[in-house]
């Protein structure tokens, strides 16, 4: 007790300071509650709202009450200008973008967070505590935190932008083995450079600025080359990983400013993102290391065996086949998203249910470009929850299925994952469409899936193909079923 009294005597605090700490604490609690609620379907939307309130509180509290060296926040005009501009642009982008573009958007916004962390690190580097440098030279934790924030923030920024570009299609995959070595060298160079800068002893941080900019450049480049060789099937994992990176940088900035809201929020995102990343890797039966090294689909050593012939089916025949089936399973993939065919798929399943056909959707965890991508799309088309079946459950019942309709999916139904040990996707759990009595594949053309490997399913005796944009072909099938 005496100790506490003595402690309080020695520090001076104002009402504002303590109120701000309480606001931050409150905001941190709202973040945790929000995240907790976000992980249950019933409360998710409210959870998002609660987290947003926590954010508004933290921002407003900072604006009104924050002090640094006795100075209140100034430049209010600029701050409100930037806030308003960000608010308007952010809302417009978030509202206007199509649901199929969601993964790109998350990646883009995530990159923004990374850029902010980078800027903070750059601006705070010259302000490293003079006393700390006097005591320990550059070899102190503040310096380390700033460097890590700079490196991780910029990797997160450029990495997210490349992921955004790749998903959007204006950046193509570059797959070469040499890139893997370049990346490893770059990573070592970054670590070495950080170590070198921290060994500089008692020096004015301002004198090191040119080196810091070199470090920044190398880190930005690493972000680009880090995502470049990673194939599409791994994009969800990468976005999730970069998301947790941004969380970690937010926490580091929080550490720098002794700010509880930033610290808790950042760490929460860091650990949540990491868990999501691991869940994703598990769904694909791959290690995170493999994903990061960018080994996926890079080999292309898969043996080309004799593939057989492709058989096509007409819309009319498909309509008849579907109408006289008992059980139909729809296996959606990215093609469904691209064609925006989810509404038609639902129309078809309502029609078929009217005829007494049982229709389910088999959802592979990594179908599409993000975890849960298919769920979001089908929910958009009002497909009821109970019709969506996870792939394990769907596989148990696949023997009894009369028709499996694959709409724009490829790698997630590729039997090579089970049969061909030389295949790059060997070991990945798949939806076992091959076990169904008939397999119909709706596909734009004979192009390969994102993992760029051949799919034997398309050449199987039981399989028939219906080529064309899924929206057009489904439209015609719906009409045919209606007329029957």
């Amino acid at each position: 007790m005496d100790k506490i009294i003595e402690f309080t005597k020695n520090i001076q605090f104002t009402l504002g300071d303590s109120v701000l700490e309480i606001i931050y604490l409150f905001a941190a609690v709202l973040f945790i509650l929000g995240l907790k609620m976000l992980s249950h379907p019933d409360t998710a939307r409210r959870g998002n709202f609660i987290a947003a309130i926590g954010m508004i509180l933290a921002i407003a509290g900072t604006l009104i009450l924050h002090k640094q060296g006795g100075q209140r926040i100034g430049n209010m005009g600029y701050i409100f200008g930037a806030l308003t501009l960000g608010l308007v642009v952010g809302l417009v982008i978030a509202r206007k973008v199509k649901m199929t573009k969601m993964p790109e958007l998350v990646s883009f916004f995530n990159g923004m967070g990374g850029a902010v962390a980078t800027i903070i690190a750059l601006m705070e580097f010259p302000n490293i505590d003079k006393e700390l440098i006097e005591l320990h030279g550059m070899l102190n934790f503040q310096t380390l935190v700033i460097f890590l924030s700079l490196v991780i923030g910029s990797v997160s920024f450029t990495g997210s932008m490349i992921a955004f570009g790749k998903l959007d299609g204006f950046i193509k995959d570059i797959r070469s083995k040499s890139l893997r070595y370049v990346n490893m060298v770059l990573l070592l160079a970054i670590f070495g450079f950080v170590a070198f800068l921290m060994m500089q002893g008692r020096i004015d941080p301002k004198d090191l600025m040119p080196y810091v900019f070199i470090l920044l450049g190398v880190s930005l480049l690493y972000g680009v080359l880090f995502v470049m060789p990673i194939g599409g099937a791994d994009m969800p994992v990468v976005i999730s990983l970069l998301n947790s990176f941004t969380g970690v940088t937010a926490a580091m900035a929080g550490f720098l400013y002794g700010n509880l809201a930033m610290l808790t929020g950042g760490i929460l995102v860091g650990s949540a993102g990491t868990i999501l990343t691991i869940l994703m890797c598990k769904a694909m039966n791959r290690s995170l290391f493999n994903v990061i090294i960018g080994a996926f689909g890079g080999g292309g050593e898969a043996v080309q065996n004799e593939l057989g012939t492709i058989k096509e089916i007409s819309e009319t025949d498909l309509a008849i086949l579907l109408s006289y089936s008992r059980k139909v399973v729809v296996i959606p993939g990215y093609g469904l998203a691209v064609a925006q065919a989810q509404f038609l798929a639902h129309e078809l399943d309502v029609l078929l249910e009217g005829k007494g056909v049982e229709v389910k959707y088999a959802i592979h965890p990594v179908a599409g470009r993000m975890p849960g991508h298919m769920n979001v799309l089908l929910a958009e088309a009002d497909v009821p929850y109970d019709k969506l079946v996870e792939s394990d459950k769907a596989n148990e019942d696949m023997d009894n299925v009369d028709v499996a309709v694959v709409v724009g999916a490829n790698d997630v139904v590729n039997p090579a994952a089970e049969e061909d040990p030389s295949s790059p996707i060997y070991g990945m759990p798949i939806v076992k469409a091959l076990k169904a009595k008939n397999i119909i594949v709706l596909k734009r053309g004979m192009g390969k899936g994102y993992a760029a490997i051949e799919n034997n399913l398309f050449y199987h005796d039981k399989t028939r193909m219906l080529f064309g944009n899924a929206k057009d072909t489904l439209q015609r099938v719906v009409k045919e079923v209606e007329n029957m």
Partner: protein
Amino acid sequence: MEAILEFIYVNSETIFGIILSIFLGIEVISHVPAVLHTPLMSGANALSGVVIIGAIIILGHAESTFSIVMGFLAVFLGTLNVVGGFAVTDRMLEMFKKKPKKD
């Protein structure tokens, strides 16, 4: 070595907070159904925008033109992350609303 010990002593409360938060984050997330993976990732992404507080602090104490420009950029990008993140998450979750069951 001495520096590390000193650091741990000085920042013990923060270190407690960080370690507990890590476990909290794992615990809060680990039972999430696959349906909510995308919204959750998006929501977490909005939360990482909390870094904007740092941006406000920088701009709020900026004096040189360079730091005002950088601060402005940081606050703008941070707002984009926060607002866009929450708005997109809300839009996704809007579609998960319980619909009256059809017979």
